């Protein structure tokens, strides 16, 4: 494209038309791939070319403006280049403004970080455009802090909006922050609340990172908001967006490094002094020692009894109960030793444990940490699992009844669920030489640590199981034959499962599964899925399957995505555990209804994980049908 430079007013609107037409037909890449680099070079220092470029884009008709602007934003290498190319287009043209400030940020969420940086950087580079930047920030924050958006929009969109917010914040200058400090604070408070309410850990973390960043920006001195969460690549990436990678940011960090080193050097200096000094007196000391050795006629006594002080750990279960319920506050050492020794004592004395099992379960459920023992939570949980596996029926009855009782904290209720699952896993695994061994071939381990999201590991297991199922006809006898033992979970599966499923729709004053406590509901649903999975080959599995399917049906439209994921896992375990003949014989109508529901979920559910699980379930159902057809009648 050549032009006659110098003084002539030429109309380039036909070029704009051509550009627009090409872009709208989807050829943005080709034409802009050539045009943008050329224009970048030309506009670097030449004002006339800049003005020509601006005219070019301004004259594009409105109906093609979106495609052109989108193409430019995606193609431009940096924000300042975009600024040179587009000028104040967003201020002058309504359609361009809409595309840049609304469509690309709030309605679409597939763009890369580079595109976001370009866009927002472009807005920040001119004073006329900065008002738009502030408006964009406000709208982004509104979306971020709206509870319905947090609940219903996909996680990817929320991540995108969070990134955009952080980039905007990084561009803001002090006076601008001052002017909108109050609004920032309000949005942050509301937004943090919605995010922390969510059951998905990813969303909670997103909320925490963004809130921390906002707090950092608005409180330059004084305490800033600081959450505790695990850092991972995503959070690190997000935090890096807050700092603009420009040269002036690098310099202030250097003096910081130096002052840190200087501070570290001070305590080193006296130590190095000591080292140089101790070398010198070492010599004369040896000589004087040799002289005075004859003076040193103090004969030591026998010190062989001087050993490490050990607190005796209790030897009997009833002693443990006494110590744990005892009110003497001074015996903390004994309490500590008891907590550490309890699990092994329980396992070694099953008969004695059975006499006091419910009492022990009660004590453990209410046990609170008295000393700063390492791993207290895990010790307690293992003791609880030991008690439950030693005397399953009464303790399971107790625990499931307590799950639905008044005056327990959410943490305690979730602990009950964790303990039930761990014990069920232990009971259903085949035991070798009297010890439980988790065989990697048949049943992969399910690690349930308190507070962690068990559904991820669970999904992996389902995936593996599905894979193993679909290829089973080919694998033949390649698996190792394991010694067979009676399945101990068989007789007690019902006691674990049915009480949990019974009262979920009866709210108590402090506990409402269908209302506020949807996090516990999510955990309950996942627990039921795992229990169902572990009940394969038990007698009660068919009744459990039916009850579970009814339960899932009642809750299938729940708004919380964590709950929905759990429900879909329940369906998976059901399909895997209940013998195929029974499913197809007894539950045909329910299955058909479930199939249509799964199809709906697969297409329309906003959460990506739900959609994937629904697809897996449909595949499983297909496999079931095929299997039955494959069996020669």
């Amino acid at each position: 494209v050549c032009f006659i430079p110098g003084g002539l007013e030429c109309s380039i609107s036909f070029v704009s038309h051509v550009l627009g037409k090409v872009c709208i037909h989807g050829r943005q890449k080709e034409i802009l791939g050539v045009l943008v680099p050329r224009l970048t070079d030309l506009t670097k220092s030449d004002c006339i070319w800049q003005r020509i470029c601006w005219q070019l884009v301004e004259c594009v008709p409105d109906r093609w403006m979106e495609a052109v602007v989108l193409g430019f934003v995606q193609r431009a290498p940096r924000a300042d280049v975009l600024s040179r190319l587009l000028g104040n287009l967003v201020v002058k043209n309504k359609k361009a403004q809409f595309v840049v400030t609304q469509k690309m940020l709030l309605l679409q969420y597939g763009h890369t970080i580079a595109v976001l940086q370009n866009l927002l950087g472009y807005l920040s580079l001119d004073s006329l455009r900065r008002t738009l930047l502030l408006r964009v920030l406000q709208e982004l924050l509104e979306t971020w802090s709206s509870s319905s958006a947090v609940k219903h929009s996909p996680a990817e969109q929320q991540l995108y909006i969070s990134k955009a917010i952080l980039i905007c914040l990084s561009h803001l200058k002090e006076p601008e922050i001052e002017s909108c400090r109050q609004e920032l604070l309000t949005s942050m408070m509301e937004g943090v609340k919605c995010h922390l309410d969510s059951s998905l850990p990813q969303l909670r973390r997103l909320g925490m990172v963004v809130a921390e960043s906002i707090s950092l920006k608005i409180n330059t001195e004084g305490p800033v908001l600081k959450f505790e969460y695990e850092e991972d690549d995503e959070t690190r990436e997000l935090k890096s967006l807050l700092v603009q990678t420009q040269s002036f940011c690098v310099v202030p960090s250097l003096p910081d490094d130096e002052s840190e080193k200087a501070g570290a050097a001070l305590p080193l200096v006296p130590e190095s002094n000591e080292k140089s000094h101790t070398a010198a007196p070492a010599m004369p000391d040896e000589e004087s020692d040799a002289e005075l050795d004859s003076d040193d006629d103090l004969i030591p006594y026998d010190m062989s009894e001087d050993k490490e002080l050990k607190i005796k750990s209790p030897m009997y279960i009833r002693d443990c109960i006494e110590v744990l319920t005892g009110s003497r506050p001074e015996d903390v050492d004994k309490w500590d030793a008891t907590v550490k020794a309890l699990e092994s004592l329980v396992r070694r004395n099953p008969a004695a444990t059975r006499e006091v099992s419910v009492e022990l379960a009660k004590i453990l459920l209410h046990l609170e940490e008295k000393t700063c023992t390492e791993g207290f939570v895990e010790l307690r949980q293992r003791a609880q699992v030991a008690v439950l596996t030693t005397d399953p029926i009464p303790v399971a009855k107790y625990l499931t009844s307590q799950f639905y009782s008044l005056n327990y904290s959410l943490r305690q209720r979730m602990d009950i669920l964790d303990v039930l699952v761990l014990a069920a896993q232990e009971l259903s695994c085949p035991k070798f030489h009297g010890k439980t061994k988790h065989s990697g071939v048949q049943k992969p381990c399910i690690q349930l640590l308190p507070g962690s999201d068990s559904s991820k590991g669970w999904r992996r297991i389902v995936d593996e199981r599905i894979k193993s199922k679909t290829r089973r006809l080919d694998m033949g006898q390649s698996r190792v034959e394991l010694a067979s033992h009676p399945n101990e979970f068989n007789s007690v599966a019902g006691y674990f499962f049915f009480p949990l499923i019974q009262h979920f729709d009866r709210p108590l004053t402090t506990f409402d599964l269908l209302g506020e406590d949807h996090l516990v509901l999510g955990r309950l649903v996942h627990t039921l899925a795992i229990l169902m999975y572990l009940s394969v080959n038990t007698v009660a599995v068919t009744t459990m399957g039916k009850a579970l399917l009814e339960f899932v049906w009642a809750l299938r439209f729940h708004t919380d995505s964590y709950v929905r994921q759990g429900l879909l896992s329940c369906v998976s375990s059901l399909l895997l555990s209940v013998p195929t003949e029974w499913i197809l014989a007894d539950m045909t109508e329910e299955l058909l209804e479930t199939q249509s529901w799964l199809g709906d979920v697969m297409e329309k559910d906003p959460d990506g994980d739900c959609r994937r699980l629904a697809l897996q379930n449909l595949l499983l159902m297909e496999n079931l049908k095929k299997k039955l057809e494959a069996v020669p009648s």
Partner: protein
Amino acid sequence: MALPPPDPQFVLRGTSAAVHTLHFSCGGPEPDIPLLFSGSENGFIHVWNLKTHRVNTALDGHGRKSVCCVETMGGKDRLLSQGRDQRICLWDLAEGRTSVTDSVFTEHVGFCRCSLLKVAQGRWLMAMAARSLEEVQILELPSKTSVCTLKPEVGAKLGMPMCLKLWQLSGGSQPVLLAGYEDGSVVLWNVSMGKVLSQLICHQEPVMSLDFDSEKAKGISGSSEKVLSIWSLNEQQNLQVYKTHELVNAGISDITIRPDKKILATAGWDHRIRIFGWKKLKPLAVLDYHTATTHCVSFSDHSNPRERLLAAGSKDQRISVWSIYAQT
């Protein structure tokens, strides 16, 4: 074949509370009865008669709050006691009296024991932890005038002072203070100028107790960890680590060097009293009598070396008195 450790020569019972501090006063001429002063958690100071092994008097001056330090000021008739009621009391015990003649309000709520140093006839310097968290105040007694306040510099983050020792090299020289702090460091202060002469990080945990031998310019400190740290003072008044000794069990409440500088005793949280040779810190004995953590150890000031005793007070409410290495 090493001998088994000796048993206590006798045990004093009757305090009915954990014993936190001990002080002997046995240096008087013959008709004087050797005494042992003990401070307990119930606020009482018991004056034990070491001949009859019974309590002569019980002094109640701290409102039933624990007594953490007792010292005599030039003889058994004048006593100084520090309690957790934030007061330091001066007692007049001559001729059977048991009255508090004076008291200093320290406003200190920690456990730091004060340190006394006689600078002239009838004049003492006392170092005590003051109201503000990191400060140590030096008072002159009996006038109670403040000599100076030793404040660490801003940002030093030493924490509370845990133990103090005032000393001077010889009769007329400048008094200096050794203070052990919560962050594990020992600081040497010049009292008259109020400035830090040297600072040394001896431990990772708070310094629980320290003692210093001014003749050899060597000191020892114990902490809540398993390490005893021995440090020395060189001619430039700089502290440097000389040696460390690792113990079997963690936690030292008190360390005392015997007046003849031959041995030292430590009171441990593992209920045991350990005796070491001071010259090379050779472990000499482990005295295992008490059934709860020992809080304090003290050597007697008998003029006759053979009568020298070691006393230890413990949380099990008993005071064990030992005669060990008295022949040397």
